[in-house]
């Protein structure tokens, strides 16, 4: 039941935010068109279809942080799809006598044509999106660019289907701008809702940190691909409505240049939030029109001044506010914080997990350099094990082997009876190992609470057998309650460390793996960190494996200490035993040769 309620709440919030934004834009539009003139109505029509296209781009680019030049290719596919089923049969027989796929006898009304266009685009785009979502770095951007060239040539040369360069006309035109307003509203609701869904939150996590997201059990591919598919749906809606609003399509409507115009709208307003996309669309459409009128109509070149405006605006925004004018100030986000209700505590008592983490006989070579030479570590349920050793001893490598970042050439990693040798970070996280990072990898643009609730979404799916305390309980344990609504990146260093700890604990893991949790902290802070780690680990019943340079911290927090040196175990035992071991002192201070 609570799932349905939460879903309703999300829908209500998204609708409210969308309605408010549409109302603002509509008020502006009415003020503008009351000055009269059909040209003013057509400018509004242009703005509304831009609006839908911008939101389509925002869902993918804004949420995943992957730049795409190719979205217009799919808007074009949608526009042509609308045309080939929307043009009345008689006119179609004349314009496209050899149309393939039996389309010569297919005719849909406006709604049917729009739906057809969306379905076709999602299928074609979805397949293409597999390639986009699998690649990393700049490759996805290049793949989208390739899509643009491919579709451009198909549209120009597949004359049986598209009639080539001349384009197609005779698509039944929509009366007035009413349907465009409806489309814009629907697009807004979808874009807002997507940011509230599980997979949408995951997409945002991958944008914020491509390494931390998988380490918390979020699969990059599925999050990106989902964003891509939803984005395709909106782009198709925009392309289809634009075709129906103009009554015609041609290859020049959806070029790289028009895509860049849409991209500028997105980045100027602030691509991370929906409100930013709205602001950008309004500003750029208005500015473009203003500069167009500044141009000299005698010189035929009404495009000149808008380019100046676009380039200048984008340059200024990049130099002065690279996050866009709004940054993260989102109407929906504000609503979300205002309507936040803490879920009732479950009242479940934490129990330690029953699995033991074993890494045994691990061997890793980098080229000729032997980083690990048979070292290993065992952590029993609920136990705190410290891993120490001088620089270059292999601690971090062992940690990276356990968390799936480095592949071992020999040895095994197991959790209970689950084999984790050679598993991927995302699967290791879901199996119950949650890690923190030496150099802090928070989702910086999200609020403190959102950092934790994001991980809870993973836990709800993959760790449901464990006790899962709510985000606020964990934040309280980590001493972060008063900062819950702050942006994570604005916290001071010690609190960022504690937040990373709380975020990892929200996965309800069997073990927390902490990579130098006190590095850069003063002695008082690291003393406080001992308490934070203990209370958070106890709350979720997790054992702890911790690397740290600060032996004071390690001896205070650990039940058991393993000392590595030159890739092997040098000593292990209780803190007192390790401290008294002369070999350990020698490893740290060096022998007096």
């Amino acid at each position, binding site marked *: 039941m609570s799932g349905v309620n939460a879903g309703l709440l999300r829908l209500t919030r998204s609708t409210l935010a969308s309605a408010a934004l549409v109302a603002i834009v509509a008020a502006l539009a009415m003020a503008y068109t009351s000055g009269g003139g059909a040209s003013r109505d057509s400018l509004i029509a242009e703005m509304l279809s831009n609006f839908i296209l911008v939101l389509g781009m925002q869902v993918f680019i804004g949420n995943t942080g992957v730049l795409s030049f190719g979205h217009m290719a799919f808007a074009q596919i949608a526009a042509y799809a609308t045309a080939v089923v929307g043009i009345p049969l008689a006119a179609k027989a004349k314009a496209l006598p050899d149309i393939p796929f039996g389309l010569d006898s297919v005719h849909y009304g406006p709604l049917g044509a729009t739906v057809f266009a969306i379905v076709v685009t999602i299928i074609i785009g979805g397949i293409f999106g597999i390639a986009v979502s699998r690649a990393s770095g700049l490759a996805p951007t290049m793949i989208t660019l390739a899509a643009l060239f491919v579709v451009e040539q198909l549209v120009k040369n597949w004359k049986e289907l598209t009639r080539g360069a001349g384009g197609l006309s005779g698509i039944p035109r929509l009366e007035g701008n009413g349907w465009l307003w409806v489309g814009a509203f629907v697009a807004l609701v979808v874009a807002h809702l997507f940011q509230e869904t599980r997979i949408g939150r995951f997409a945002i996590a991958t944008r914020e940190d491509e390494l931390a997201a998988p380490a918390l059990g979020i699969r990059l591919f599925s999050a990106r691909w989902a964003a891509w598919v939803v984005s395709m749906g909106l782009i198709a809606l925009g392309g289809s409505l634009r075709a129906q609003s103009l009554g015609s399509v041609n290859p020049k409507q959806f070029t790289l240049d028009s895509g860049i115009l849409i991209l500028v709208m997105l980045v100027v307003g602030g691509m991370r939030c929906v409100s930013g996309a709205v602001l950008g669309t309004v500003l750029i459409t208005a500015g473009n029109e203003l500069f167009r009128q500044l141009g000299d109509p005698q010189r035929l070149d009404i495009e000149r001044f808008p380019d100046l405006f676009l380039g200048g605006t984008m340059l200024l925004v990049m130099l002065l506010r690279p996050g866009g004018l709004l940054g993260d100030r989102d109407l929906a986000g504000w609503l979300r914080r205002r309507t936040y209700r803490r879920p009732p505590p479950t009242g479940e008592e934490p129990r330690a997990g029953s699995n033991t983490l074993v890494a045994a006989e691990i061997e890793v070579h980098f080229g*000729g*350099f032997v980083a690990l030479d048979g070292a290993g570590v065992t952590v029993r349920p609920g136990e705190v094990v410290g891993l120490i050793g*001088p*620089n*270059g001893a292999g601690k971090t490598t062992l940690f990276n082997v356990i968390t799936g970042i480095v592949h071992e050439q020999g040895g095994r990693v197991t959790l209970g009876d689950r084999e984790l040798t050679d598993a991927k970070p995302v699967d290791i996280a879901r199996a119950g190992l949650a890690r923190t990072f030496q150099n802090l990898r928070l989702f910086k643009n999200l609020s403190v609470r959102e950092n934790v609730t994001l991980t809870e979404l993973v836990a709800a799916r993959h760790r449901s057998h464990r006790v899962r305390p709510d985000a606020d309980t964990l934040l309280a344990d980590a001493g972060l309650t008063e900062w819950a609504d702050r942006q994570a990146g604005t*916290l*001071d*260093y010690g609190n*960022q460390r504690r937040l990373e700890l709380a975020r990892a604990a929200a996965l309800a893991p069997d073990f927390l793996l902490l990579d*130098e949790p006190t*590095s*850069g*902290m*003063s*002695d*008082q802070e*690291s*003393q406080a960190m001992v308490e934070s780690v203990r209370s958070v680990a106890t709350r979720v019943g997790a054992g702890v494996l911790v690397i740290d*340079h*600060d*032996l*004071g*911290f390690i*001896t205070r927090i650990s039940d058991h200490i393993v000392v590595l040196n030159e890739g092997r175990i040098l000593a292990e035992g209780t803190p007192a035993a390790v*401290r008294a071991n002369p070999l350990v*002192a020698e490893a*740290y*201070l*060096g*022998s*007096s*040769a």
Partner: protein
Amino acid sequence: MLEVDQITTRYGAITALHSASLEVRAGELVALVGPNGAGKTTLLNTVAGLLRPATGSIRFEGNDITGTEPARLVRAGLALVPEHRRIFKDLTVEENLRLGGSTASAHDRRERLEEAADLFPVLRTKWTTSAGYLSGGEAQQLAVARALMSNPRLLLLDEPTLGLAPTMVDVVFDLLQRLREQGRTLLVVEQNATRVLQLADRGYLLRTGNIVATGTGADLAADNSLFDSFIGLEAHGREA
């Protein structure tokens, strides 16, 4: 020669160095020891100009060099052999050395290339090999040779024995000794605390961003509490 006066250095929200001061006199070998994460590398990087201190000042041969670009410090006679060596793996040994001597005249550069080849015979045999193919010990010698190409009066070395086999560690310590005999002033960060303190004129012990002890090398090395300071067991009584 070098006076570091109460510098504090931050990385974003992290304060890595709290008001640390030290002094190196001409001709000395000064060792800077302490546990990992204590701020030793931060201190060297700040002196070398890679990081800008938030407060405090640094003087080199009487001139204020706080916040000066590394490129100017190299020309002034101060060079750093950075942590992890950071040799240019895509460049050959010769190219690495030439880049090290980029501030010298063409004539001096040629002369120093010869000197480097004499001082490090192993490099001469790998002259046109990409530095990425060198072993750890060879790479470390290249890193030092590269820094010497600018003929620095003060050489900072950050963990020169890190990741080296024991025999190579001996080679590096011999090298430190030789550089000192050449009359160069050295400030060395070294994990092998016992050994570097035996060699050093003076030493500083750094912990969680603070200088916690100083003295002659021998005194520090003989101090029984060195290990405790390293692992931080006594720190709480001592913290100001």
